């Protein structure tokens, strides 16, 4: 007995409104957690974020995948349970209520209604009844007549469908949750727990992955990614689970013919599309199809979506320039595919080149900042007109391909580099931009390598190698002295000048402008530093000019005038040479050519719950509208033989419309039952 009452109490609690409201609140708050903390990131990110103490605690709490965690699913289950018991509890009384007309209502109870009125009925009961009946019918009521001793009761109702709305809306919640559960990762968790499947690391060849990390064709619910380079094919999908992966065999293979990548003029992506051929493993039949974002394709019950794209191993051709001072290694060719690690193919370099990524084009805004117009009127004017007008000056230009790579030394230390293939115009001159950074989170710092009129960096490298070559400093110093002092200068002055120049070049060869600057600071009084700096700069510029002449002569090139343009080249060369002292690598890899290979990433899913969820959603919409917009009304008209009548109206909800509807029906019926005398 006691047991019964306990289960009864639980049942009542579960189906109670209090419980339902509390659940909705708890669910809402629980959902917030997963929006604050980024979900399903690699575990390392969380470890960095929270540290070794909190990381495992949060992992246990399931905070890295809140919506798949056990406790969240339990709350959802309670929602299903609450809704389910609520339906179970309400069904019988509601159906009864829907069907019934309550035609046996007592006069006494009708007169207790909030909306009731007594009116006169001057017509014979039969006539009055027929008139009221016709009115009710026209007004959209269903009526049941109950003749009684003292007259007749018309029990009318409309809008009973609102009760159906209740069932639809609440049943739909159960359906949607159930369908969602089938498509979530619960089936996968079950297979891992019961089917002995375990995740494995992602850094291995597909062929090496053991059967316990492979899911068979009979798996009816999964979501994974297929990576296919152009010209290749794949027949397995990779499922990311926690911090590992599982492989899903597919009943077909997909090969990528071509990946289309289109951009708007602004550089914004416009279209991602994969031309694929799907071949059924069982029948050998093939289908050709183009999959795009927003245009998925279903094959054999598996949906395929354009998820993303990557480099599929583009072949890159690089020219390596030796940056070591005094070295005579000529530029040499190297290269490889994106993703490869290549040993630097020249003696004396114990380095590995890791080709990270390649971009076939880079669209940048090359417009110069201009002074904004001031004043309210001008500002307003700027924002009138068409929405097509650009508020800022734009000059979107494709600055060409770029490559990003790491150069790792024998100790395992690496720096990251980003080089553009084509010269880019900056402040009126053209440069090859060579970026470097020490850590992945830092922005790239760029060395601007000046190029000759033909777009090649040859002059720079030639001048640089002379300037940094200690064995040639004396030669440059004597040439510079000769040019600068003319023939009349005394031997002593000449000697001092030569010595100063040689010393300056030596300093410059150690650490660029930095070393020269430090030397000035440590040896020259503050008041004279600016003047001294000017002199050092003049010496370096003059030396660069001498180096330039030497370089041209040894390359068999004709001499050039020291005009403004060449002067600019020399200054840029000095700057870049100075920067190259801090480049952190003995080699600069110039991107010389490429064969782009793209790869597509398709998402493949089998989601058995989808039709259930969609059907549930349809029911939900129908149910919500029926509940909110079909108004249930019951109108009772009691016509008594005594010439007295009672009109009463009830509604399932209190609202202002009820009052208004009652007034309208009462007035209309009063007039029908007691028609005004004909004039």
């Amino acid at each position: 007995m006691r047991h019964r009452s306990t289960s009864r109490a639980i049942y009542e609690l579960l189906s109670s409104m209090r419980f339902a409201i509390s659940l909705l609140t708890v669910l809402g708050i629980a959902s917030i957690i997963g929006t604050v903390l980024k979900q399903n990131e690699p575990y390392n990110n969380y470890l960095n974020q929270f540290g070794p103490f909190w990381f495992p605690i949060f992992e246990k709490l399931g905070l890295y995948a809140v919506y798949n965690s056990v406790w969240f699913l339990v709350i959802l289950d309670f929602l299903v349970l609450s809704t389910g018991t609520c339906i179970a509890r309400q069904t019988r009384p509601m159906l009864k209520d829907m069907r019934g007309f309550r035609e046996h209502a007592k006069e006494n109870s009708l007169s207790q209604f909030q909306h009731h009125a007594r009116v006169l009925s001057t017509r014979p009961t039969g006539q009055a009844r027929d008139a009221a009946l016709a009115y009710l019918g026209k007004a959209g009521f269903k009526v049941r007549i109950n003749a009684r001793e003292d007259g007749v009761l018309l029990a009318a109702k409309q809008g009973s469908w609102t009760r159906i709305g209740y069932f639809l809306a609440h049943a739909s919640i159960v359906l949607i949750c159930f369908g969602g559960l089938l498509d979530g990762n619960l089936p996968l968790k079950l297979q891992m727990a019961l089917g002995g499947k375990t995740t494995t690391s992602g850094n291995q060849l597909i062929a090496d992955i053991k059967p316990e990390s492979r899911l068979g064709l009979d798996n009816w619910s999964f979501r994974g990614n297929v990576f296919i380079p152009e010209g290749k094919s794949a027949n397995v999908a990779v499922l990311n689970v926690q911090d590992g992966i599982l492989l899903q065999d597919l009943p077909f293979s997909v090969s990528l013919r071509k990946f289309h990548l289109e951009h708007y003029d602004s550089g914004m992506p416009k279209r991602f599309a994969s031309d694929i051929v799907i071949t059924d493993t069982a029948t050998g039949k093939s289908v050709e199809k183009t999959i795009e974002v927003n245009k998925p394709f279903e094959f054999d019950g598996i949906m395929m979506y354009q998820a993303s794209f990557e480099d599929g191993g583009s072949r890159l051709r690089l020219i390596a320039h030796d940056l070591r001072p005094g070295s005579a290694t000529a530029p040499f060719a190297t290269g490889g595919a994106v993703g490869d690690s290549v040993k630097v193919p020249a003696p004396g370099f114990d380095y590995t080149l890791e080709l990270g990524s390649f971009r076939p084009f880079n669209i940048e805004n090359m417009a110069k900042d201009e002074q904004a117009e001031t004043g309210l009127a001008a500002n307003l004017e700027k924002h009138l007109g068409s929405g097509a007008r650009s508020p800022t000056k734009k000059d979107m230009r494709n600055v060409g391909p770029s490559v990003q790579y790491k150069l790792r030394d024998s100790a395992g230390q690496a720096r990251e580099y980003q080089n553009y293939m084509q010269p880019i115009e900056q402040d009126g001159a053209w440069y090859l931009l060579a970026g470097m950074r020490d850590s992945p989170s830092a922005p790239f710092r760029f060395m601007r390598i000046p190029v000759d009129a033909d777009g090649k960096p040859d002059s720079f490298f030639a001048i640089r190698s002379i300037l940094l070559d200690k064995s040639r400093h004396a030669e440059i110093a004597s040439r510079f002295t000769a040019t600068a002092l003319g023939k009349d200068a005394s031997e002593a002055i000449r000697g001092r000048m030569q010595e100063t120049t040689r010393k300056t070049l030596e300093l410059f060869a150690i650490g660029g402008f930095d070393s020269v600057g430090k030397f000035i600071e440590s040896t020259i009084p503050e008041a004279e530093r600016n003047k001294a700096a000017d002199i050092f700069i003049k010496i370096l510029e003059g030396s660069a000019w001498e180096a330039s002449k030497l370089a041209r002569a040894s390359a068999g090139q004709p001499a050039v005038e020291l005009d403004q343009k060449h002067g600019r080249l020399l200054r840029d060369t000095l700057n870049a040479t100075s920067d190259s002292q801090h480049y952190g690598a003995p080699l600069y890899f110039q991107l010389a050519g490429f064969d782009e290979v793209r790869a597509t990433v398709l998402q493949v899913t089998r989601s058995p719950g989808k039709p259930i969820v969609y059907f549930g959603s349809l029911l939900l919409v129908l149910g919500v509208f029926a509940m909110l917009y079909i108004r249930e009304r019951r109108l009772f008209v009691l016509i008594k033989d005594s010439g007295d009548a009672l009109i009463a109206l009830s509604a399932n909800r209190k609202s202002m419309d009820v009052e208004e509807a009652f007034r309208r029906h009462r007035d209309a019926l009063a007039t029908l039952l007691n028609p005004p005398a004909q004039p």
Partner: protein
Amino acid sequence: MEIAHTDNTSLLRRLSPGDWLFALVLAGAAAFALRQYGGFMDIYDKAILALVVPGLAAIGWAWKPFRPFLAASAALALASISLYGGDLARAEQTFFLKYLISSQTAIMWMSALFFIATGAFWLGLVARSDFAEKTGSALTWCAVTMGTTGLLVRWYESYLIGTDVGHIPLSNLYEVFVLFSLITGLLYLYYEGHYATRRMGAFVLLVISAAVAFLLWYTFSREAQEIQPLIPALQSYWMKVHVPANFIGYGAFALAAAIGAADLLVRKGILASRLPPAEVLDDVMYKAIAIGFAFFTIATILGALWAAEAWGTYWQWDPKETWAFIVWLNYAAWLHIRLTKGLRGPMLAWWAVVGLLVTAFAFVGVNMFLSGLHSYGSL
């Protein structure tokens, strides 16, 4: 307090020749649009266009003042299009375009009109001036007309930039803020007519003014008004149904919050003699939340259908999705308490006001503070 008369006789029987003429004009307009711009539509776009006709007809039948509004917006948009004549540069050269009905200018007019309308409603409330309230009402009508014109013209302008750029202007935070202002304005105007009182205008227009203030900040300080092409995930007919449904929801919730605030004041005796009785405010609040909830439900489901097509899964607990779910739970709980428990009074009004905070976070806050797939308008 009179509620505008509603009749129980079936809708079709009540329709006058004028109603049918209105529907006919709508159908004609759709046919014209199809003939003129059908080349830019796929089969789904055409189906949506066809469904818009009965939809707008139903609104126009149930709410007569909607018709002149629609006619005026359409006429202004067509005038603008014909002034453009296919050349974007005309926006700078033609007086009427530059200062009246190019998209940006029309939206600026909308903003100014909403501000002045707010002032007029408050003047009416404080000075008990019927005239000021009527002015506020008329200005609100003008504002929604200019806003609608602005969006329609913006749609056209986007195609003038390039046919591959053209799209319905519902694609980023700037555009949907205009939509939000209009829809909230229209919902208010509907209730103003339905309950035959202009007294709620002062409160509702405050919320709209706040949205417009944000819009102006977004324009002048972030230069967000420039039409941008669509990224691949947004290139879908779903945008045409998902976004408007969502903003009917947001607009209705915002309106309910404004009414809730008025309701709380009335219950405390503040402005009680100047505002409608608490009973009416309570009713409007319920109606707004009901319609908001119904459309928000549809919008979320449409969003799920779209997500299934674009991102490969109908629900993946992206921050925007999750917050939509939280908003939905919030109003579901509100409706349960009111409808099943029959609860009335300040608690529900407070809840409606707080509900706006939740809604605002889902609408703007998610874009500002959280990152996810759904960030189409960052600040």
